[in-house]
């Protein structure tokens, strides 16, 4: 079977699962979960260096930067300007590390500290400026199809609609909206990458996202806060493959009821049936 790689901007991955690196009980658990997930692309945040305890454990000591493409994000930013500053800082660090992730960013511009929902207006503004600065922009947004359409028009390398709010574990709340997003983003451009970002709670959420025709899924909390993150990482790896194949296989239509799986002719002489 043909298993196309995931292409986003100048990047190509064998795995369609993108995972975060936050909220793990320990770096060791994170390291094993990343390994088991099969992901080749991991997202990280940019934060102030701890000045005391500077010898303390550092995320980068637990990440094989030869193996993973690092996707720096602008989590925690609430204005376009702040997101642009953070994007530049992330690029600077990854450039020093010679990591291929130096040319892109996961753009988050949030509208509210409580719900962490994205601000479409500020997100669009930041997308335009970062694209101008040569960034490949993977942009986190709501499932609003018109906003998705405008973000692609602004030059985003990938639009990443949320299935449900970050960390909510609600999965796909509005399949109808995501279908319209996919219709907009892929018409006349079927290879344009659409990633479902945020909201995933269980493996079935990932499988459903892929069955809608998404190109990949990005998640963090669903694995990091599961009771058994390692096993959940394995679940998510299988869920991506299941959903990708299921979408490409052309599922049977839904009916109110029933058609026989066994032949109806050739049955032995039976008592009169109803």
């Amino acid at each position, binding site marked *: 079977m043909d298993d196309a790689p995931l292409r986003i901007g100048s990047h190509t991955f064998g795995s369609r699962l993108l*995972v*975060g*690196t*936050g*909220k*793990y009980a320990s*770096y060791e658990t*994170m390291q094993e979960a990343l390994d088991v997930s099969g992901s080749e692309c991991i*997202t*990280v*945040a*940019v*934060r*102030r*260096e701890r*000045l005391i305890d*500077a*010898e303390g454990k*550092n*995320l*980068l000591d637990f990440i094989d930067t030869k193996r993973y493409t*690092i996707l*720096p*994000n602008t*989590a925690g930013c609430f204005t376009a300007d702040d997101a642009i*500053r953070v994007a*530049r*800082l*992330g690029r*600077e*660090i990854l*450039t*020093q*590390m010679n990591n291929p992730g130096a040319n892109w960013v996961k753009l988050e511009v949030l509208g509210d500290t409580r719900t962490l929902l994205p601000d479409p207006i500020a997100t669009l503004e930041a997308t335009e400026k970062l694209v101008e600065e040569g960034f490949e922009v993977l942009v986190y947004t709501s499932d609003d199809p018109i906003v998705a359409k405008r973000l692609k028009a602004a030059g985003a390398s990938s639009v990443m609609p949320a299935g449900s709010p*970050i960390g909510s574990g609600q999965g796909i709340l509005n399949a109808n909206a995501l279908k319209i997003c996919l219709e907009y983003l892929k018409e006349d451009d079927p290879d344009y990458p659409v990633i479902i970002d945020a909201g995933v709670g269980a493996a079935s959420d990932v499988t459903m996202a892929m069955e809608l025709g998404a190109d990949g899924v*990005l*998640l*963090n*909390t669903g694995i*990091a806060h599961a009771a058994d993150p390692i096993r959940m990482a394995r679940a998510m790896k299988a869920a991506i493959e299941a959903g990708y194949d299921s979408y490409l296989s052309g599922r049977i239509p839904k009916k109110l009821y029933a058609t026989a799986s066994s032949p109806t002719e050739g049955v032995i002489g039976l008592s009169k049936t109803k």
Partner: protein
Amino acid sequence: MKITLNGEPYDLDQSLTIAGLLERLGMTGRPVAVEVNRQLVPRAEHDGCQLAEADEVEVVTLVGGG
């Protein structure tokens, strides 16, 4: 000389370059990025960039996030 470093007041007995500051912080060679007064200063300019009174300096790195 007083600067603000990662949001906290910070005293420098002498004027320093960014490279000097990082050395003093024991971060030479560590994967960090530096902003002075909200402008990124690329690694190549750390030696040449002299810090001034009241500069707002940010020294950042990568941490776990989603």
